């Protein structure tokens, strides 16, 4: 299977249930979003640091999660210093880092499958609205299964494009890829039907 971003471990964070972690994350982000004061953001920053240390995923892993924010944070920081001064700039950058960091912490300490199961069970109350959690789970598994198949397919298409000397044409890549993708989906649909997916 595809590897998730999960970092194996046995910390108190790893041992909490996915649903609990998601609920706590939701509350923390909600409170921070509404009361965006220096105290709250500082508190969030302390909590993020402490929880990261507690989780044992390592500061380096956490920094790697925050790294894509770097340029945006610099942009925001510079903009806010120019507009409202260093205090507001620190607040804005701090809020960005904490809201991304806390969410990343949940991802790093929870297995992908557990989060998927959690989402599927979250769909159960929606059954009345015609949502079928089992079908949602099947769709997600089928997507995971289809990714390597389509990757191979797209490599085939790229090779064919190279062989025809149309290497730089996005169209010569995308049209055959799309046609083969739809054909593949047709076959998968047929196989699902043969395996009784639609049968009562």
């Amino acid at each position, binding site marked *: 299977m595809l590897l998730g971003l999960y970092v194996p471990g046995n910390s108190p964070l790893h041992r909490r249930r996915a649903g609990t972690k998601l609920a706590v994350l939701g509350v923390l982000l909600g409170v921070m979003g509404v009361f965006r004061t220096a105290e709250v953001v500082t508190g969030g920053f302390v909590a993020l640091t402490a929880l990261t240390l507690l989780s044992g995923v390592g500061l380096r892993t956490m920094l790697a999660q925050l790294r894509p924010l770097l340029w945006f944070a610099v942009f925001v920081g510079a903009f806010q210093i120019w507009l409202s001064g260093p205090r507001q700039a620190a607040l804005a950058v701090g809020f960005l880092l904490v809201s991304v960091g806390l969410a990343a912490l949940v991802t790093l300490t929870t297995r992908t499958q557990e989060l998927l199961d959690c989402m599927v069970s979250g769909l159960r109350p929606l059954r009345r609205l015609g949502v079928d959690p089992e079908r949602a789970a099947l769709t997600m598994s089928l997507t995971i299964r289809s990714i390597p198949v389509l*990757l191979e397919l797209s490599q085939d298409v790229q090779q064919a494009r190279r062989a025809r000397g149309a290497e730089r044409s996005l169209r010569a890549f995308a049209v055959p890829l799309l046609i083969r993708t739809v054909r*593949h989906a047709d076959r998968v649909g047929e196989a699902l039907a043969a395996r009784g997916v*639609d049968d009562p």
Partner: protein
Amino acid sequence: MRRTPLATHDLALVAVFAALVAVLGAPGYISVSGLSAPITLQTLGVMLTGSVLGARRAPLAVLTFLALVAAGLPLLAGGRGGLSMFTGPTGGFLVGWLVGAAVIGWLVEHRPSRFGLGWVALANLVGGIAVVYAFGVPWMSWAATDLSLSAAWAASIVYLPGDLIKVAVTTVIAGGLLRGYPTAMPVQHRVRRDRDSVAG
């Protein structure tokens, strides 16, 4: 046309197109330094999904893809994933993909017969750009603590030329499929079936 029962076929299309969006995040990864969201073919995947799958299935495909990202699979361009993708400054663009795919699908399904490819281009401009930015930019402004909308626009505008190219490519590809390979366009199936059922 009584082949596979429709429901499994839909499920297969949803899952396979979700996988296609993931696969398009893998190659062609061009990072625009200075900002936090890389240019990729992933938005092309969203546009193609909307244009081919229609208003109901396209957002389900994007939702499935986003669920796997949220669960921690590194399927966003540059190998990113996890919940922090949603809490971070570019989270709004992901939500925009979801709504945008539905809007593109709805518009393409309701193409007035006197319009041709221009309509597909319009659908993708509206759903693939206007809607996506309408979610992405205010979100970015909010997440970066009252970054003014115009500044958030300034931070996002670098992606616009790329997105316009993707609209053009999507239009050409969808047009090619509509004319040259109509059975690869499930949207067309749907329309044709509707007509049949009216006739019969």
